[in-house]
């Protein structure tokens, strides 16, 4: 299986002894008989990594595996230097993890603050720091005016922002976001990209999205997935180059995405 790997040399670890934040080797996951992930290799360092791919590509399964919601059927995973198959290391890793699932349900009668606080407590943030951390997260997603409102009174976009708030409340070193911008208006998406850049400066952010433009604006690196495999891995500009001469697509990035997919399926 050939992977188009166009990362600049520095990102390949050539410049440092620091291990990458995410190191996946030969990962496979199964759903019944189907191989949802098939011998996947991936290494990601600091920055914002955009994960593109059609439905069923395995993006959500990959994110679930990295979030330690699923354990691998085959292969190995190392996250922030921890081995999640060991219970103690898994706990230590989860303290530094932020995860927003694709569909997050809400406790209707909790307030915004109570919801974020609940998960802050489950992430074992030190007791004295819980309340300020929750307040800070709520301010970052610009929900201060609704901090004491019950979740059942919020719109879909606001609920999504509550989900982002619980993901960032513990200032994670690995932030996994599955379709985070669903329901957000363009202005909110711009604020959100600033948030991504902020977390990408000090740790790894992986954003799974079908909105190609979100990827172009905020991501330092891009990966394209299909049928459980990584087809392309590099910079947004690198993906654009792949799309030169490709007919379908409204933007250079979309053309690149389409070109990579088409090449793998032919």
């Amino acid at each position, binding site marked *: 299986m050939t992977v188009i790997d166009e990362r600049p040399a520095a990102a390949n670890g050539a410049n440092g002894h620091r291990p990458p934040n995410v190191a996946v080797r030969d990962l496979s996951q199964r759903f019944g008989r189907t191989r949802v992930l098939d011998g996947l290799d991936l290494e990601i360092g600091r920055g914002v990594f955009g994960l593109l791919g059609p439905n069923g590509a395995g993006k959500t399964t990959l994110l*679930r595996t990295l979030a330690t*919601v699923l*354990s691998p059927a085959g292969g190995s995973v190392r996250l922030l230097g921890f081995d999640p198959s060991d219970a103690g290391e898994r706990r230590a890793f989860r303290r530094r993890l932020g995860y927003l699932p694709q569909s997050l*349900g809400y*406790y209707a009668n909790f307030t915004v603050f109570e919801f974020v606080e609940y998960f802050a*407590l*489950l992430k074992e943030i030190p007791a004295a720091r819980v*309340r*300020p951390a929750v307040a800070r997260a709520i*301010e970052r997603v610009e929900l201060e005016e609704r901090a004491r409102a019950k979740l059942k009174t919020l719109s879909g976009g606001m609920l999504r922002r509550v989900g982002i708030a619980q993901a960032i409340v513990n200032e994670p070193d690995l932030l996994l976001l599955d379709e985070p911008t669903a329901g957000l208006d363009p202005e909110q998406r711009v604020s959100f990209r600033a948030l991504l850049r902020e977390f990408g400066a000090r740790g790894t952010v992986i954003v799974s999205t079908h909105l190609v433009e979100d990827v172009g604006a905020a991501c330092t690196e891009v990966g394209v997935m299909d049928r459980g495999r990584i087809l392309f891995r590099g910079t947004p500009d690198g993906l654009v180059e792949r799309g030169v001469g490709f007919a379908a697509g409204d933007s250079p990035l979309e053309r690149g995405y389409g070109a990579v997919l088409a090449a793998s399926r032919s």
Partner: protein
Amino acid sequence: MGGMHGHSDGAAHVATCADCQARAGLRGLDVDLNRVWIGVAGEVWAREVGWVERTAGRLLRSPGLARALLTTPSLLLSWLLASVAVLAIGVLATHTSGEPWVALLAPGLAGAAIAYAYGPGIDPAFELSRSMVVSDRVVLLARGLAVFALNALLGLAASLVAGQAVGLTWGWLVPMTMVSALGLAGATLARSANTGVAVALAGWAMIVLAGRAETRDLAAAVTPGDLLPLYFVGTALCLVAALYATNGRRSEVTLWR
């Protein structure tokens, strides 16, 4: 603008007044007022924590687990009151008919409560819970034990009030354990609280009816008697099933809506 006595907004005044300069941000104060506001907001927005939760947090050495425990659906006041009501009816029925209604009802209630304690069938944020430091299995264990203990206590209280024979007062605890385990296994395997309830109640009904068909005596049907080893094995099997159902290898994570 209100505020300080006698201060005007005029430039001449501001030029000589430290207070107005501070307010206008002109004094390069080295105090982090943003951090202060975050601290204030945290206190203002938070809900006061009750003494029960605080004590539980200290005993369990985990405020997160304490809160997870206190938000268990089948430990909420409304659920508890409903259970008490059902048992009260059972006590009355026992008084009037002499049949061991409490012993019949208690395990069923416990099974339903256990099924409604945890899992994707009842927790809309279940997938997120599986990525938490306080692991979902620890939460399941704590909730399961608490629910079971509470239901056992309620059942015992009802039994004592109903004034049944000693065997009937305690005997149903064994079937209750088994029925609870059935509820747990059903709920975790099917990822549905309702399935767990159905499995628990159906299982209990079958046991009682089979026992009654054999001995024609309801009292004997609700106590373990010779079937004790079977109950033991059954409970163990259900617990193993629940352990399997909650491990990380199950890739199907259906989301409850």
